[in-house]
C-alpha cells in the first residue's frame, strides 16, 4: 500500500472560473475549508491563518469548533489560473505546544480539468512518508483517543477487580 500520498477526485458542476476562485481566493478557500487567512494567496508566500469553523457544513463546523483559533501556516507553491493550485502545510498540526516549522511538510495540490459536465477537481496530498510516524500517530486524534480509551478501560477493569 502506498503510504506516501492521498489522491481524490470530484466532479464539480460549476464554471471553471467559479471553482478557481473558491481555491485561489483566500477568503473563499477559508469559508468552505474552515480557516481564516491574514493575507491573499500568492506564489511563494507564507500565509498565516487560523482554524475557524466552516460556513458550509454545520456538522463539520461543530467538529472544528474545539480547534477554533488554532494557528496554521501554509506556503503557497503554484498558482496557475484555472489549472493548478498547490501549497505545503503540516497536516494535523493542532498542538500549540509543538513547533512544527522544522518538520517536513506535505504538498497539497489541486488540479482543475474542464469536462462537459463541469470541472473535474483532483486533490493530491503527498509527502507523508517523510513525517515521523510517532508524530503521525499523534496528529490524528482518533487513534490516540482510541488508545487512551482502551488504556482507560483496562485501568477501570483492573481497579474494579
Amino acid at each position, binding site marked *: 500500500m502506498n503510504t506516501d500520498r492521498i489522491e481524490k477526485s470530484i466532479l464539480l458542476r460549476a464554471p471553471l472560473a467559479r*471553482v478557481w476562485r473558491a481555491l485561489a481566493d483566500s477568503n473563499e478557500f477559508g469559508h468552505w*475549508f474552515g480557516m481564516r487567512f491574514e493575507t491573499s494567496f500568492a506564489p511563494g508566500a507564507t500565509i498565516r491563518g487560523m482554524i475557524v469553523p466552516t460556513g458550509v457544513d454545520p456538522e463539520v463546523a461543530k467538529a472544528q469548533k474545539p480547534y477554533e483559533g488554532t494557528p496554521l501556516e501554509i506556503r503557497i507553491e503554484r498558482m496557475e489560473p484555472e489549472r493548478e493550485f498547490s501549497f505545503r502545510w503540516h497536516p494535523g498540526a493542532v498542538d500549540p505546544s509543538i513547533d512544527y516549522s522544522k518538520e517536513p511538510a506535505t504538498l497539497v495540490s489541486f488540479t482543475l480539468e474542464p469536462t462537459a459536465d463541469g470541472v473535474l477537481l483532483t486533490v493530491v496530498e503527498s509527502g507523508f512518508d517523510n513525517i515521523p510516524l510517532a508524530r503521525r500517530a499523534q496528529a490524528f486524534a482518533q487513534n490516540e483517543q482510541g488508545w487512551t480509551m482502551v488504556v482507560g478501560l483496562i485501568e477501570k477493569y483492573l481497579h474494579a477487580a
Partner: protein
Amino acid sequence: MPRNSNLAKSAPVFAALGDRTRLRLLLRLSSGGPRSIKDLSKQSTITRQAITKHLEILARAGLVRGARRGREHVWRFQPNRMDEARRSLDQISRQWDQALARLKTFVEA
C-alpha cells in the same frame, strides 16, 4: 464498523489482552514509558522469567517491543506502527472527502 479482515487481524491482540498480568504490564508500559524487566518485576509477585514470557506474548501481538539497552532488555508500548500509519492516512483521506464535499456545496450553490 471494523471489517472482517480487521477483526481477524485483531484476534491475537485480544488474546494477548485476555490475561490480568499482561494487562497490568501493558498498562504500566503505556502510561509509564519504556521499562526494563527488572523495573517491571519490582512491584510484582511473579518471577522475571514469567514476566518475560508475558511480554513475549504481547510482543507477538504487536503491542510491545523489546530492545537491548546496554546490559538491560527494555520494553516499550508499541501499537502497531504500520497500522497507525495506515489509519492516520485513512483519516486524512476521510477529511479530504469531507472538505471536497464542502467545496462542492459551496461552488454549486
